[in-house]
């Protein structure tokens, strides 16, 4: 086998994102499908509340499922590209030996296994929490909505995504493997041309290093901003939801936000460090201190982390305003939504602490990058 199964199941980031997406979609879609059974029995004032519940279930599935699905696609592309770059020599040798791009790329189906693991666990967890969610969404006076098992959800949320992601991984790998065999055998990276234009500005080396780290891997910048966006939006939304709808829904959103944020940040910064190991080792060999090395690699992400946090705050405010003032506009029992300044500061405080801790941990990891990365031992 060209790629071992363990390579396919260790994409933790994809598993977490798929877990979150499928977890949320499982109980909301199940609720939506079960609620349709009582559709004709609901009338009068209850109809408004029922419609609002149905709309919010569809709305949440579309937003959460859609966005997270896109993120999982981006992560898959990101991982496969890294994997091919990191194993360019091995794939180059296989191609030289006569393996076709098709044959090699077909073995990338294993990357769909991370999707399967996340989706399967999310599906199971979604079913486990379902009774609690149904209870939370029960409307007084309306016929009871009973939990039914819908096999089509298993197909749509677990089996289909696994097949689609496996197929996508093979296709993307096939496109990525269209490289010159000789350059792949030489390591692939050595001949990679920088797309960056040289700047004529005179800046200290550490500033230049900082900027080039950002420009060299824009996907990492995206994931850092995304991590902070998720954390900011979902924590504030979770805290607000605890007041407006139910504590369980609030806690659930809050936990998903924290897990997604931390996972995406972990994945992004780990990638940045791995991609810059030889640069870090050269700086270490030349005598740059641990602090200087950490600043050169990590400081550039701070503005994007702040931007992600700010966008997350705006996003959750707009979403909550739309949900409460538009979807639930006619429902008298829903309280008025106002921007939670207190929740904003709680989220900001925990965000600053978590980000600082994460950066401190990564500064230690950067310090531990061995100079052996660039030297030979005989």
């Amino acid at each position, binding site marked *: 086998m060209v790629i071992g199964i363990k390579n396919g199941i260790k994409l933790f980031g994809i598993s977490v994102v798929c877990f979150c997406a499928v977890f949320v979609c499982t109980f909301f879609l199940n609720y939506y499908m079960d609620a349709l059974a009582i559709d004709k029995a609901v009338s009068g004032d209850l109809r408004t509340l029922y419609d609002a519940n149905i709309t919010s279930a569809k709305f949440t599935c579309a937003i959460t499922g859609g966005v997270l699905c896109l993120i999982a696609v981006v992560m898959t592309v990101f991982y496969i590209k890294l994997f091919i770059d990191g194993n360019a020599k091995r794939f180059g040798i296989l191609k030289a030996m006569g393996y076709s791009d098709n044959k090699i790329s077909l073995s990338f189906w294993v990357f769909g296994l991370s999707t399967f693991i996340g989706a399967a666990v999310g599906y199971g967890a979604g079913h486990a929490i379902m009774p609690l969610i149904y209870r939370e969404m029960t409307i007084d006076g309306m016929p009871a909505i009973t939990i039914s098992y819908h096999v089509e959800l298993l197909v749509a949320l677990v089996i289909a995504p696994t097949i689609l992601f496996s197929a996508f991984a093979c296709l993307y790998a096939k496109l990525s493997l269209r490289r010159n065999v000789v350059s792949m055998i030489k390591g692939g*990276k050595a*001949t*990679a*041309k*920088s797309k*960056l234009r*040289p*700047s*004529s500005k005179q800046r*200290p*080396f*550490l500033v*230049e*290093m900082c900027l*080039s*780290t950002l*420009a*060299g891997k824009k996907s990492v910048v995206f994931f850092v901003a995304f991590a902070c966006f998720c954390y900011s939006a979902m924590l504030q939304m979770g805290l607000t939801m605890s007041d407006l709808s139910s504590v369980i829904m609030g806690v659930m959103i809050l936990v998903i936000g924290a897990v997604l944020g931390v996972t995406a940040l972990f994945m992004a910064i780990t990638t940045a460090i791995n991609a810059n190991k*030889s*640069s870090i*080792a*050269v*700086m*270490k*060999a*030349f*005598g*740059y*201190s*641990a602090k200087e090395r950490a600043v050169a690699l990590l400081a550039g992400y701070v503005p994007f982390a702040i931007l992600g946090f700010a966008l997350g705050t705006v996003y959750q405010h707009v979403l909550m305003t739309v949900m409460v003032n538009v979807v639930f506009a006619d429902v008298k029992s829903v309280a008025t939504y106002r921007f939670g300044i207190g929740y904003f500061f709680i989220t900001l405080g925990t965000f600053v602490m978590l980000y600082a801790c994460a950066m401190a941990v990564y500064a230690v990891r950067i310090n531990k990058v061995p*100079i*052996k990365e*660039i*030297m*030979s*031992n*005989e």
Partner: protein
Amino acid sequence: MITATDLCKEFNGGAVKALRGVSLNIERGSFVAIIGASGSGKSTLMNVMSGLERADSGSVVACGQDLSAMTDKQLTEFRREYVGFVFQQYYLLPHLSVEKNVRLGADLAGNKDYIREIEAVGLVDKLKAMPSALSGGEQQRVCIARALAKKPQILFLDEPTGALDESTGRSVLDYIAKLKAERGFTMVMVTHNRNIADMANTVVEMNSGKIVSVTDNPAPKSAYEIGW
């Protein structure tokens, strides 16, 4: 300048004995070539003498400082202050221009006149070029400029022509020799090419983790006089 005494170094839990009681004295301003077959321990000796890694036992005193007693932080400060490196695989930062790669070394020494180093290796017309746009020889010359821009007292070179063809290799060695003659720094070069050793004042030959001979060369040759 550098005194190594009874150095021992093992890898893989003792399965590989890279250095077996190596002692060596390197004079200030000299050019020492360390030669030997692959696996002879020459690169390990250079790494230990330059403070890149520690020996398991023995001592290294370089520029008056005992490296064997230093913490990681102190070793980093030692390298910052005294040492320059040229690596076989260049390790230029791919997203920075020639000028900015050289500033990696220059900024450490507060060297504002680093363009001089780029002029010295004949690349002043490529200041804004990115590494991917340079040939192997040009990339190695940028490495030399980067190492010299930090004004090191000792320059360590690990197979500097190992990835170059003969003509480019000779040209790179010629630049190195001229700059050494001009500036007088101490130079330690690891190479498996015995012909290149003819350029050095002292040739240290290693085999199986031991020094088998130390030969003084009274008449070093130029880069264009040696065989290849």
